[in-house]
């Protein structure tokens, strides 16, 4: 599997996801600078976390209009899987690859901690290696991860099976108590209609090694390798 990681000024999880990708694929991904307009043929495009352009406007809003995003969009439309993590989720949502918006966390603060997620769908290249309804532990680290969309959109996402992960308790129960940021219907990650685009706030690359406290995130990268190699 050949992967590309898009690097914006202010990206800061680009190296972390590159390390996780390399651990699963055996080769370093291509790091693509935001000013590039051409993207070589790759099997996976990752838009990493961080604070693109300082997030001084709305999170992800400036990066969504950078030249490289036009190319990312075109590839996504042509079927190349795109993974947006944290700020990457905000960027691809701002760019219109996914519906909805990530608002300020309900308690208004940046929060960095491990959360439990319920895996809602496994019929995607990203989640195929997880068991249906599995409970996985991944960290969040954001101030704007409060997913919002109108009720009709949320109904459609749920109806079409496009919710990828929900915040849950350790036992898999989806409740308000397990919701760290106020996201609508505890949504932590969503797919595009063809499930070739995944955006999620938790960081799979941060728990992809037991030494760092867990490897539930590695399952996603290993699954991608299986699906896309």
């Amino acid at each position, binding site marked *: 599997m050949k992967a590309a990681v898009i690097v914006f000024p202010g990206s*800061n*999880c680009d190296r972390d996801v590159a390390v996780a990708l390399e651990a699963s694929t055996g080769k370093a991904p291509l790091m693509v600078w935001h000013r590039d307009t051409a993207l070589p043929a790759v099997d996976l495009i990752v838009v990493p976390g961080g604070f693109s352009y300082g997030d001084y406007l709305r999170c992800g809003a400036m990066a969504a209009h950078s030249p490289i995003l036009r190319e990312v969009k075109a590839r996504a439309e042509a079927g190349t899987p795109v993974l947006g993590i944290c700020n990457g989720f905000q960027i691809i949502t701002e760019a219109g690859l996914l519906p909805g918006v990530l608002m300020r966390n309900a308690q208004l603060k940046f929060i960095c901690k491990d959360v439990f997620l319920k895996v809602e769908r496994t019929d995607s290249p990203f989640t195929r290696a997880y068991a249906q309804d599995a409970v996985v532990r991944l960290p969040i680290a954001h101030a704007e991860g409060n997913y919002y969309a109108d009720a009709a959109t949320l109904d459609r996402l749920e109806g079409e099976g496009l919710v990828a992960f929900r915040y849950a308790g350790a036992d898999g129960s989806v409740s308000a108590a397990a919701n760290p940021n106020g996201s609508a219907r505890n949504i932590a990650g969503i797919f595009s209609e063809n499930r070739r685009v995944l955006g999620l706030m938790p960081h799979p690359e941060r728990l992809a090694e037991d030494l760092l406290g867990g490897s539930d995130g590695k399952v996603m990268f290993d699954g991608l390798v299986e699906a896309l190699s």
Partner: protein
Amino acid sequence: MSKESAITPEVIKSHGLTADEYKLVLEIMGRAPNITELGIFSVMWSEHCSYKSSKKWLKTLPTTAPWVICGPGENAGVIDIGDGEAAIFKMESHNHPSFIEPYQGAATGVGGILRDVFTMGARPVANMNALRFGDPAHPKTRHLVNGVVAGIGGYGNCIGVPTVGGETNFHASYNGNILVNAMTVGLARADRIFYSAAAGVGNPVVYVGSKTGRDGIHGATMASAEFSEDSEEKRPTVQVGDPFTEKLLVEACLELMATDAIVAIQDMGAAGLTSSSFEMASKGGLGIEMDLDAVPMREEGMSAYEIMLSESQERMLMVLKPGREDLARSVFEKWELDFAIVGVLTDTGRMVLKRHGAVVADLPIDPLAQASPEYDRPWVPGVKRAVIDAAEVPAHEPLAALKTLVGCPDLASKRWIWQQYDHMVMGDTVQRPGGDAAVVRVHGSNKALGITTDCTPRYCLADPHEGGRQAVAEAYRNLSAVGARPLAVTDNLNFGNPEKPEIMGQIVEAIQGMGEACRALDFPVVSGNVSLYNETNGTAILPTPAIGAVGLIDDVNKTASLPFKQAGDSIILIGETKGWLGASLYLRELCGREDGAPPPVALHREKREGDFVRGQIAEQNVSAVHDVSDGGLLVAVAEMAMASGIGAEILPPKGVALHAWCFGEDQGRYLLTAPASQVPVILEAAHQHDITAQVIGSTGGRDLTLKGSGTISLEELTGINEGWLPGFMSAPDANS
């Protein structure tokens, strides 16, 4: 120079210069300075930049060891961590600005210390902090906690350097002077360290980073004076941070540092362009001619005075090799940062500044930078306090006392704080906040750094000498407790007004105590910062010589952490317990007393015990390790239990004063846990090393039982411990 201000005695005084200092200015100049020159003297000779009150005593600290590559005097200290790699680190205060404007004050504190580290060629890999706030009941405390924590997070999270730990205390003495001490640790190749000494007459002097504005003018002078009620009027002297620009600056500098373009580099911190240019020139024995018109400015009509004294953030000054200007420019343009050739190195030894084509300042560099005043301020030794006999201290029911202690502001969980910091970015945080020390892997290797910040200000007030020793010893212990070999220290000395002999006495004695401990523990000081005048309306803070320390773990798979790991492990206490209650948290929180001599530190035992504990970790004999500090033994046990959700039963020895055994703060102690089968091995090893070790209980269940005194559920204990800070921060504001 139009609109030139006259140099009146009032102007001199408002620049923080004494009459004697001004006399020295006249001597050095051979004439009266103009306002720009006076401003430059003022900031260069401020306490903050010149260390004039503390220099004499700082020189007594040990600063060398075979593994020290660069000690104090550069932007940060550098130590060898083997395999051609170096760790670069420093701690620095941003106390005064953080009190006036907590978010920006704390944020720019983080930005400043990050720059000190990446200026030397290191990629910053971890941030830490040591915070002291006033009495929780003080009307400003909540606002300050909120702003400082948000500011530290706002800067560190955005730039993408994990904030991996720290410490937070509350005490009424900080009501008017909070302490925000920020530490950064970076990694570099040992043969690619960058220094600040300018070299090469004719070489270009280059300005990079953000534009210069009118913010922060006289910040260094403000940080060198006491506060009064109108200090909030000084808000315009606080700078505004831009972590996004600093992120670009890190990447651009590291990219340029990978080439051979840079001769010398210095960040513009306190006193901005003034101190950076003077330091570079002074260290290189050269002069600089600078055209201030070339300085990138974000405001119009800035005077030479304003340009030289601005403390706008995210700026660097470099000397480049001739012919490398275009290469350097292209790197900074790629990162969309300002790049300007602002001057040239000369052999005159003078700083010549031009504005609008005219010379606006012409100063000799060395007399300013090196011959700055150095004071041997009068000091008096502290009055020794009486040792308190535990038998005279009321014996509260131990489990009730434990509840009070784990819920008191100093011991309550600081999760509310560190969850606002991204402590995982960069993917090498092996031990997250909440342990004795953070453990951060050296990227791409099997090694790791242990990092801690420590100080017990109430001990330092009780006896600055003993408190100085204890701060260093506790840092040593915290590193040892995770399995890290303690290598070196950075210090951040926070005190009141040094012009008062009793405060100067605290400074002198604390430094002497620190020096003793550093020498005994082979733990040299490689960098540091001094913050004096932490007084408001004449009331000083507790003396707070904060210690930041770094240790090395050779094999990242062989570390220890404080949570219990499984039921059925034995709990072993290392060190001697006499039940020292003087200056303890028990005395303060349960008895409302802050008196008594602090517990003494036996340095010869500290080293032996640290070596022993690290040995047991390396041999993987132990399942958990925690140092015993604030609150004493029972608090330490409770912390290990709460962190794991596994309970414990503790068997106090007979014939002791139970409250003193549970809560005495005798120094040099650790708790280890190990499966019963390992216990004889550990006890035998301890015996061989002449170390006191005894089994005091075992792990298991969901309760904490103190045999003979009762049981408390971990759920209740955890609720109290985790509840205090969020409850405090969300309580309705009494003022609004």
